[in-house]
């Protein structure tokens, strides 16, 4: 997460080095904690989201609600029921996302494998992987002042591109897999460039055109799956052919246990994050993206071509979203994709990019958090309502997008540089 606002604490030596510096550091640290800077707003948003989530859990549980009807007759019932519900729910989420305590017991007793112990983490990373790519796709465009809502559509085209190369050939895996991944990136980039071209040539706003293109991609997918070219030869359900064995993303930890689904798309996602970081902060193109994002008119005056920057940025963003599609159709969806495989990863990418503050490292962290929520909620069924993960994500982003709200609720002080919010230009 961003450390740019740590400046006041950074010029002090570490705590405990000299007796004189200690109170001063503590004071600065305290000031830092009560200030609405981007790090603390993120942390407080998470805490507030889990508190609101707890209230909603209590309100939505029939039994706990019933204990509140006689609150004054026996308050301890309602209080303890609420406490146990919230505690057990969050423990269940943790167990599904990080470490299952039952499995740990069984592992200690020798009845579970080490691989079983890693399964929750593997699920978290599996669900996080597409979010890393779509988060980067949205985040990169943010930096150029573009709001890329089209990651969903770009991902769908990436999914189809990778799938077609994946089932059409049978090649050695070293050639086939990269080829299919590249096909996914190209398909996503081509579809992603469309709103960029429309904006550069006609001024059509990318928010509108990319939303509409999402619909086009979604309906195209429904139609495409049904065509003879893509449709499964063995099943009459609405599902495509499986990709060839040689184009399937190998599992990362299959040596430990076959049930660990996390695959090579994850390291690919980390590599994409590193690439995006390099692109933004070390390359000329990245400098142009950021310059246009800061002020397009100044950039134009300085001789930068705004239109081509929009097109290339959207193409690169589309390529990243396309990789999310490739990760799905060659990974968890390699036995054939349906209209549900893409879920809402493209739209969730927007929230991931917001939470990660359009910063590649932050996006990876945010994607893993959201992956953990999804994996945790899935495994905590039916004791915890499965919608809790979507709900928590929504509340987190609500607070992130409105730092003034967090500041007001917690009576935080305004940091020196003012409140940090992310915004797309052009409205």
């Amino acid at each position, binding site marked *: 997460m961003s450390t740019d606002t740590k400046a006041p604490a950074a010029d002090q030596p570490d705590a405990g080095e000299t007796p004189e510096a200690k109170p001063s550091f503590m004071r600065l640290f305290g000031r830092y904690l009560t200030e609405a800077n981007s790090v603390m707003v993120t942390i407080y948003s998470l805490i507030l989201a889990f508190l609101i989530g707890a209230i909603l859990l209590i309100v939505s549980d029939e039994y706990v609600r019933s204990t509140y009807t*006689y*609150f004054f007759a026996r308050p301890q*019932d309602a209080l303890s029921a609420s406490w146990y519900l919230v505690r057990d729910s969050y423990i269940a989420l943790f167990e599904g996302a990080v470490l299952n305590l039952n499995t740990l017991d069984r592992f200690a007793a020798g009845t579970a494998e080490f691989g079983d112990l890693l399964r929750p983490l593997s699920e978290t990373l599996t669900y996080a992987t597409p979010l890393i790519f779509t988060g980067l796709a949205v985040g990169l465009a943010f930096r150029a002042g573009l709001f890329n809502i089209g990651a969903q559509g770009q991902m769908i085209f990436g999914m189809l591109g990778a799938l077609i190369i994946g089932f059409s050939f049978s090649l050695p895996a070293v050639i086939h897999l990269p080829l299919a991944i590249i096909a996914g990136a190209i398909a996503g980039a081509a579809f992603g460039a469309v709103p960029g071209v429309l904006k550069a040539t006609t001024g059509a706003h990318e928010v509108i055109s990319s939303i509409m293109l999402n619909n086009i991609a979604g*309906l195209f997918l429904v139609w495409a799956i049904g065509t003879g070219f893509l449709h499964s030869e063995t*099943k*009459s*359900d609405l599902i495509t052919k499986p990709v060839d064995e040689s184009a399937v993303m190998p599992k990362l930890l299959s040596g430990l246990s076959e049930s660990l689904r996390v695959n090579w798309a994850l390291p690919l996602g980390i590599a994409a994050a590193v690439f995006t970081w390099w692109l933004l902060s070390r390359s000329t193109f990245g400098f142009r993206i950021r310059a246009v994002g800061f002020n397009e008119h100044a950039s134009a005056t300085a001789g930068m071509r705004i239109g081509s920057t929009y097109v290339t940025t959207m193409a690169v963003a589309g390529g990243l979203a396309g990789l999310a599609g490739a990760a799905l159709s060659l990974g968890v969806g390699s036995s054939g994709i349906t209209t*549900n495989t893409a879920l809402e990863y493209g739209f969730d990418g927007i929230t991931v990019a917001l939470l990660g503050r359009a910063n590649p490292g932050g996006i990876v962290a945010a994607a893993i958090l959201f992956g953990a929520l999804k994996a945790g909620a899935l*495994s905590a*069924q039916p004791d915890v309502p499965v919608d809790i993960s979507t709900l928590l994500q929504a509340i987190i982003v609500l607070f992130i997008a409105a730092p003034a709200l967090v500041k007001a609720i917690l009576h935080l002080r305004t940091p020196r540089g003012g409140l940090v919010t992310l915004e797309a230009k052009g409205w």
Partner: protein
Amino acid sequence: MAVKPFKLALAGFSAVGLAALAACGEAPSDSNGGDNADASFLACMVTDSGGVDDKSFNESSWAGMEAAAKANDDIEVQVKESSSETDYDPNLQATVDDGCNFIVGVGGLMTENVNTIATANPDIPFATVDGFSEVENVYSIQFDTAQSAYLAGYVAAAQTKTGKVATWGGIQIPPVTIFMDGFAEGIAKHNEDKGTNVELLGWDEEAQTGTFINGFEDAAAGKSTSDTFITQGADILFPVAGPAGIGALTAASENDDVSAIWVDTDGFVSTEYGAEILTSAEKGLETAVKDAVDAAYKAANGGDAITGSYVGTLENGGVALAPFHDFDSAVSAETKAEIEALTQQIIDGTIVVESPASPAAS
């Protein structure tokens, strides 16, 4: 932020006051009112992407699970929902980890995932709904709904005044198209036997193409599709789309001469549009799932292992043509007799209703 203490206190008091109004009830006596909480047998279900309240096969299967739990205090049931097929594996794995004694996977798309996990856990009995499996410990629950739809198609062809009937589906998947295939064949049978020329809109059995609204929820889309068919002259509608099929019933209620045939359940009982419903092509999913849970429970308590497959047919009552209810007087005695005869011929095998989506078992 300077919120005035007075305002804060006021807000606090009103909140407590509201809570107090709701909180004056009597405390209940300490008793354990849990739902079969100390049952010895845990039956679990994993839904497909429709979720447990899809007004379709997930919901019917869950109703069967709950019925089993209600009838036997020693059975506890739980459900895990999937939002896409990529959730099947973790959900199935979680049911195994939860120590479920019987695991039901709903939907043909899940069959392969059920097979994989059943092979890895040979001691746990599994079931697949609307799918066929050859794995030893997987029980297949399927329905030859083409048979009941065939009878429905025959009735529709006999009852139409305009010579045109229409069908449309939710999504093009086997549990849907099998109804449409059977319906088409029933109409063809009537045309052949009676020399009529009744036309079916919305489904071409030969090409396996037709009209679908790409979902099971959108009753408005169902209504506009139905309106289109009515404009084209259809006077009997056969929606195969779960709750979205309600759109066909509202369309029928707005047109005096148009009626509808419902699927899965007896629509005269399960919907509010009984007056529009000529008959229904029923599918006994709830009963079949309940029976499977009961059988698995007996097997766990020393009975025979639950294995092989179940195919609901006209013969075993797993599928059926519902009564005509309000339309009873409109359907001629001749047609009723022919339906009786056709039912008998399907049961004894003289007539074979075949669909590419027919159950693979036997």
